[in-house]
């Protein structure tokens, strides 16, 4: 299985600011995914990030609010821009690994005041 790390593990931010979350994988992967997990809700896919191309966003998520970078096959960032309290959530990085199984990082717990 892939080993995935995320930074920061948690943060408390002020309204109107931005936070960039980093995701690092210990092996090269084709596709990386960013999810949001809100209390009492299912995991919601924000976007899919392939190296060398624009991220593909799901309905309800836009690039201006959640810009994503994917500079290489082991790294990606998600920025939460112009934050509001509604953005308080856990943000999870996920990858497809060998055997086409889906693995998740430890998550970033974001609180917006």
């Amino acid at each position, binding site marked *: 299985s892939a080993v995935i790390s995320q930074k920061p593990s948690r943060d408390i931010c002020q309204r109107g600011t931005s936070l960039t979350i980093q995701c690092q994988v210990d092996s090269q992967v*084709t*596709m990386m995914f960013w999810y949001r997990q809100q209390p009492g*809700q*299912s995991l919601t896919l924000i976007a899919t990030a392939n190296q060398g191309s624009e991220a*593909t966003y799901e309905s309800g998520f836009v690039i201006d609010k959640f810009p994503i970078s994917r500079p290489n096959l082991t790294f990606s960032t998600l920025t939460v821009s112009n934050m509001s309290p509604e953005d308080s959530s856990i943000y*999870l990085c996920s990858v497809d690994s060998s055997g086409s*199984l889906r693995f998740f990082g430890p998550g970033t717990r974001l609180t917006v005041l």
Partner: protein
Amino acid sequence: QKEVEQDPGPLSVPEGAIVSLNCTYSNSAFQYFMWYRQYSRKGPELLMYTYSSGNKEDGRFTAQVDKSSKYISLFIRDSQPSDSATYLCAMSGQFLNRGGGADGLTFGKGTHLIIQP
């Protein structure tokens, strides 16, 4: 009707009991079924993965899929306090779309399980 239904619990059982966790779904195209375990303040950890109908066993865990009833289960035998976590079911129609765009993976909301010592 949501695509995947899962009772959020909490489900509280005594140590040593057999635990049954379940999900129902409405999309008959789902073929791949997964169970994830998520400890508090951690990311989801892949626990079991099955394809189509049938059973799969791994140690104390058994995953069961009944496609005719659109019902999947995870059984935990000899439950331990360390099994206390949230269990999420997930399913996909085709295995993890590689064409870009939606990954086709649909999650339940998770069941919070508490094993009492």
